[in-house]
């Protein structure tokens, strides 16, 4: 895979939020405003790049039996770092992100990239992958935050939009509105990247396959 496609695939084609549906917790929780979205996205990008690099460098030293605890320790180190940095330099963002900043540790995008990419590739490619995925995540959170902030509060990045005062719908900044916006954005991204739904849904990719014993296939046929 060329370096350029490693970098760009995270932005639209394999966007962690809109295509892989990873990291739903921060996506839904902190995107009540565009600025929060950028803050959360860039913090995660920082952690993602650093942890990808370190995990990639240590990939031959970490035994596979204990790789998960090792990954978590590495990731948590960088999360603590960014937490102190934000607390010191951007205290307002630190307070508005709250517990979700610490929860970057268990963000499945970071663990997922560590497992899927960094543990199998060279350091330079891992850093590029981290940048691409991080920017894709930031972009997704920024889009979500913008839509929710514009329709829910009538502002964008804190700037009051003329004509929107008195025409806001508070549902958009409620949790339910987050799900609506996410669903609609996923639909738009699927349309833009021309993804088609699979013609036949089989049991192969179904998470409930073991529980249902192909009963749904019988029912539908």
């Amino acid at each position, binding site marked *: 895979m060329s370096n350029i496609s490693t970098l760009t695939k995270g932005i639209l084609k394999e966007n962690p939020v809109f295509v892989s549906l990873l990291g739903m917790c921060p996506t839904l929780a902190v995107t009540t405003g565009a600025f929060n979205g950028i803050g959360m996205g860039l913090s995660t990008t920082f952690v993602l790049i650093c942890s990808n690099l370190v995990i990639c460098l240590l990939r031959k030293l970490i035994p596979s039996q204990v790789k998960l605890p090792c990954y978590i320790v590495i990731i948590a180190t960088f999360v603590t770092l960014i937490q102190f940095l934000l607390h010191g330099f951007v205290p307002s963002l630190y307070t508005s992100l709250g517990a979700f900043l610490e929860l970057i540790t268990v963000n499945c995008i970071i663990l997922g990239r560590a497992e899927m990419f960094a543990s199998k590739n060279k350091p330079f490619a891992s850093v590029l992958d981290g940048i691409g995925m991080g920017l894709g995540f930031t972009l997704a959170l920024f889009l979500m935050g913008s839509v929710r902030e514009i329709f829910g509060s009538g502002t964008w990045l804190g700037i009051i939009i003329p004509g929107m005062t008195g025409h806001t719908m508070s*549902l*958009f900044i409620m949790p*339910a509105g987050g799900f609506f916006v996410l669903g609609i954005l996923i639909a738009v991204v699927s349309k833009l990247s021309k993804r088609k739904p699979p013609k036949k849904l089989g049991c192969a990719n179904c998470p409930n396959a073991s529980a249902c014993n192909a009963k749904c296939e019988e029912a539908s046929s």
Partner: protein
Amino acid sequence: MNILTVSPSPHIKSGITTQKIMLTVIAALIPAIISGTIFFGPRALFMVIFCALVSMITEIVCRALMKKEGTVSDGSAMLTGVLLALNLPVTLPLWQAAVGCIFAIAVVKQLFGGLGCNFANPAITGRIFLLLSVGSDMTSWAVPFYYKHLPMLGLFEASGSTALDGITGATPLASGNAELTQLFLGNIGGCIGETSALALLIGGIFLIISKLISPVTPFSYLGSLAVLTFAKVLITGGDMTEVPYALLSGGVILGAFFMATDYVTSPITAKGKLIFGIGCGLTTFIIREFASMPEGCSFSILLMNLLTPYIDRLTKTKPVGARSASKERA
């Protein structure tokens, strides 16, 4: 010449079509529309027509975008628009009413596959969407006959306009100080179509007589709410007029006859309908008594809509003479 035609059942058709059912329900709502127009002025009628039009246009656009056959002629979109309008306060700004209609048709109905596939009643969900989005405009109730002194009979006066200052009051459900006769006639503040119990009962009984809706759902809903309120009066030692008051104020009559009886989102069997109605009554009572909102009718129906598939599974009718699988094995 073929004398015998071989065809699968059904062999006898009643001639009732979806279109006929929808138009009959709209006809049954006419008394409520008239009473709303009397109490809240020409803007009420205008809102009903506006919502019906927006819903129908949304339906046409959605079906065209999805490249599916047009379904606007079945009248279901028109019914959703009319029902949603009757669930709105008369002074709601038009853009908000339009957003509610678009949400009801596009998101709740068409995204799930159109009529018959929607998991919840579109009109109820549209109302809840508006209630959560623009709560203050959705709960400012104009008092009856407020429009008499307004220019153009208040046709263009929406919430926020200075001409409307001082004409809104709390719904009698929250204030608790309306006379029962006025409640029955509908001479109280509230949504366009929910205030007049008399008009709604005329429409509801017409639907029951013409066998379009089963009496089980509305009566179990209203009955369970009455019994629960009665029990509450017995325990707390209040006034017995609280029972009719609970039934006549708020939107339960509109909900019980026109919303909870939606074919798509309510159970099929009579037993299921009974459970559905009692569940609605119970949830409405709990929300009214213990939650921070004065009215819980729409939320209770939405909740029971979501439970409908499970109720249907539990109350499946057995074919005559069928034995259960466990006995078969033994």
